């Protein structure tokens, strides 16, 4: 450890202005601060002590919270692949097959995104922000497993470039970059991204033998095509949906694993419980409303089942709570989460073109978040002004 520190101190001057590689300063600093929390001390006036938490630690917590859903997602990929081919693979067989499918996607997402992050940090002569470490893992978890790797790369770079860097980098973006990547894929390659072709690994591959009658569609896809809830539950039980034995994007299927992640995020204080709770409330309200007034079969599925289906749980826990793109006032967070719940179910049920509404709901509310905050801020200002008038 000390030898490593000495070595870093020795090579450090090479990356300073006037050294051998000044163009790699940001890169060097990123790796240095990865190994060692720097030795900076507090200013001569102000708070002389500081909390141990920093952005790296915060992002680490997000990644830890994602791990249960990620591991389950890997298993799920193998499980459905082998279900399709009719093979028996066992717990580890399923998992390692999934690992082989998912790891390349994660690698592509991190490499293409971090490349741009480092590049922009260097151009701006800033330090590399840690935000992408979460984004880079979120992207693989919300794409279908059979999404071609080059598409993942293109989408990631698009998201980092257009979603984040053009606005000034981490902390300045309007919409969630991971969701933007997903939306980019959805709208740029609709044929590849919707329907029932991509959700099970190897489904679109003609060389793979499939057992008869296997459908690769997600439960939401089936519901959108007119399957009733009773028909659906004969295929996947409520327990299957909760545990995650259903096809879907890599990380979104297991409500249980996502709940574990949610508990970690809330307990560590990294994500807002207000957004999560109000989001769930929004879904339940909209579901009840549709149950009461809806006529089509889709509107009549039990209102609570929306929480288990599709990407809602993943979206509200990991995407909607991104502090940069969510509402930033505490009251605003309640409104923001609630509206995401409402809009997600509205899009999901009422608009047949989009079987999944969560992505669009969160993106829409990302854009509206500054407006929500503005209203909350005005209320605060009003309260202050009314103090004068009431005297």
């Amino acid at each position: 450890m000390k030898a490593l520190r000495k070595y870093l101190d020795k090579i450090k001057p090479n990356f300073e202005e006037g050294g051998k590689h000044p163009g790699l300063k940001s890169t060097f600093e990123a790796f240095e601060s990865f190994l060692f929390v720097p030795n900076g001390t507090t200013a001569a006036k102000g708070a002389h002590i500081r909390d141990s938490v920093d952005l790296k630690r915060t992002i680490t917590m997000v990644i830890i919270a994602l791990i249960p859903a990620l591991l389950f997602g890997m298993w799920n990929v193998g499980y459905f692949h082998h279900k399709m081919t009719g093979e028996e693979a066992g717990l580890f067989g399923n998992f390692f097959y999934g690992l082989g499918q998912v790891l390349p996607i994660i690698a592509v997402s991190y490499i293409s995104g971090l490349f741009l992050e480092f590049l922009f940090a260097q151009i701006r002569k800033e330090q590399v922000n840690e935000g992408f470490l979460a984004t880079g893992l979120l992207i693989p978890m919300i794409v279908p497993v059979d999404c071609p790797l080059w598409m993942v790369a293109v989408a990631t770079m698009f998201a980092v470039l257009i979603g984040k860097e053009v606005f000034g980098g981490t902390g300045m973006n309007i919409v969630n970059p991971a969701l933007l990547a997903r939306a980019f894929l959805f709208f740029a390659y609709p044929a590849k991204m919707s329907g029932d072709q991509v959700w099970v690994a190897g489904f679109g591959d003609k060389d793979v033998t499939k057992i008869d009658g296997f459908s690769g569609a997600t439960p939401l896809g089936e519901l959108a095509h007119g399957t009733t809830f009773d028909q659906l539950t004969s295929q996947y039980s409520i327990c299957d949906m909760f545990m995650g034995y259903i096809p879907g994007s890599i990380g979104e299927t297991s409500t249980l694993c996502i709940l574990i992640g949610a508990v970690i995020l809330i307990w560590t204080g990294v994500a807002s419980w207000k957004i999560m709770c109000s989001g769930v409330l929004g879904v339940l309200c909209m579901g009840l409303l549709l149950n009461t007034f809806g006529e089509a079969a889709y509107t009549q599925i039990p209102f609570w089942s929306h929480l288990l289906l599709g990407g809602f749980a993943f979206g509200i826990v990991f995407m909607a709570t991104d502090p940069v793109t969510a509402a930033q006032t505490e009251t605003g967070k309640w409104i923001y989460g609630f509206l995401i719940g409402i809009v997600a179910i509205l899009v999901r049920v009422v608009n047949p073109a989009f079987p999944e509404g969560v992505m669009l709901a969160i993106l829409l509310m990302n854009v509206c978040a500054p407006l929500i905050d503005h209203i909350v801020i005005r209320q605060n200002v009003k309260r202050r002004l009314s103090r004068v008038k009431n005297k």
Partner: protein
Amino acid sequence: MSKVIKLKKGLDINLKGQAEKTVEKTVSPTFISIKPSDFPCVKPHLEVRQGDKVKAGDVLFTDKFRPEIRFCSPVSGEVAEIRRAERRRITDVIVKADSQTEYAKFEVKDLNSKDAVKELFLKSGVWPYLRQRPFNIIADPQQDAKAVYISTFDSAPLAADYQFVLKDQLEAFQAGVDALSKLAKVYIGLDGKVASNIFANVKNAEINTFEGPHPAGNAGVQISYVCPVNKGESVIVVNPQDVVIIGRLVKNGIYDAKKTIALAGSKVKNPAYVSVVANSNIDSVLEGKIDETPLEGVEGEAVRIIGGNVLTGTKLSKDGFLGFYDNEITIIPEGKYYDFFGWALPGLKKYSFSHTFFSWLCPKKQYELDTNMHGEKRAYVVTGTFEKLVPMDILPLQLIKAILAQNIELMEELGIYEVAEEDFALCEFADTSKTDIQAIIRKGLDLMVSETR
């Protein structure tokens, strides 16, 4: 009409090195220094030259912007040195103290009118103890304040306990309150954690009780519940120990700036209280009290000496001087070290307001915190932390951003008139993005002052 106000927001940081409640020694100063940097928005105009003889209560310098405000020597002696920094900015006006203090006599009678009190306070040099909200600067003698506010407790970590410090000074305290009440109605804030409060029977003032974690003791926080500051208004804030100094002036006609300070912190040997004179040299106070063993792996200095508390204080050198408003000296270890994978390890010993380190498993533990930043400056990403630490109807993050954008109108609307740096000290402590929030707030306040001048 006495109220009990319960505050939920905030944080008590449990630090090692609380001062034991004994006055260990009385130190008479050999030198004192008045530092203009203790007074934001003051531009000093010297009234003495090196070699001049002064008595305690004689003027050393005045404020160029408000010449009626005088900064006086708390001791008698000879002006030893005027220290200057770049562009001849004055940093210290140093007086070599006589062994026996000779006091300038001020005539104290007919303190029945506002003007008489103002005149006495201004002439004798106690006026700078009166600070105002808005802007946290020395109160404006030209403006009539709507209230005088005294918070009788400091809730900051390791702060001096005024229940102990002032237990024999209540008479002077009452005299100070009586004089201050001529300026405006006096409000007093009591600590709800104390069972039989020595300030509970103070007369001539409205008394309210505040319960809750730090910053419940901040005057600005208490004011926001009792008599909030609106645009165009001002409230005078006085520290209880300074009220006693004012009380002595009113009773005896002299500027007698003796005070009892806490000497606290994990790097103090046997932390306790010390009797000193305001602005005095600290080397004799610190003699034999500092534990100089550095933390493992620390380069450079071993300890940091802070005038004031760990959240808002100013770094002092060993041969430095106590600040004008300081009521304690805190000494903590310096933290110039590299922390191998410090962000990744479980962190059982790492204190955090969040639960991101496993130290939440032992909430009662006393911590020895050092001056390490524990990270580097980043963009504002995390939201919701500041809101848990500011118990006022203020949107902290939005106000900080308005200041950074220098949007004066928005700063006004979001309550810049109500805040001081210290109200945001915990935000600075807990900030994930490691920004210097108190410096940002001061910048905003300075900007507002320069706009109104």
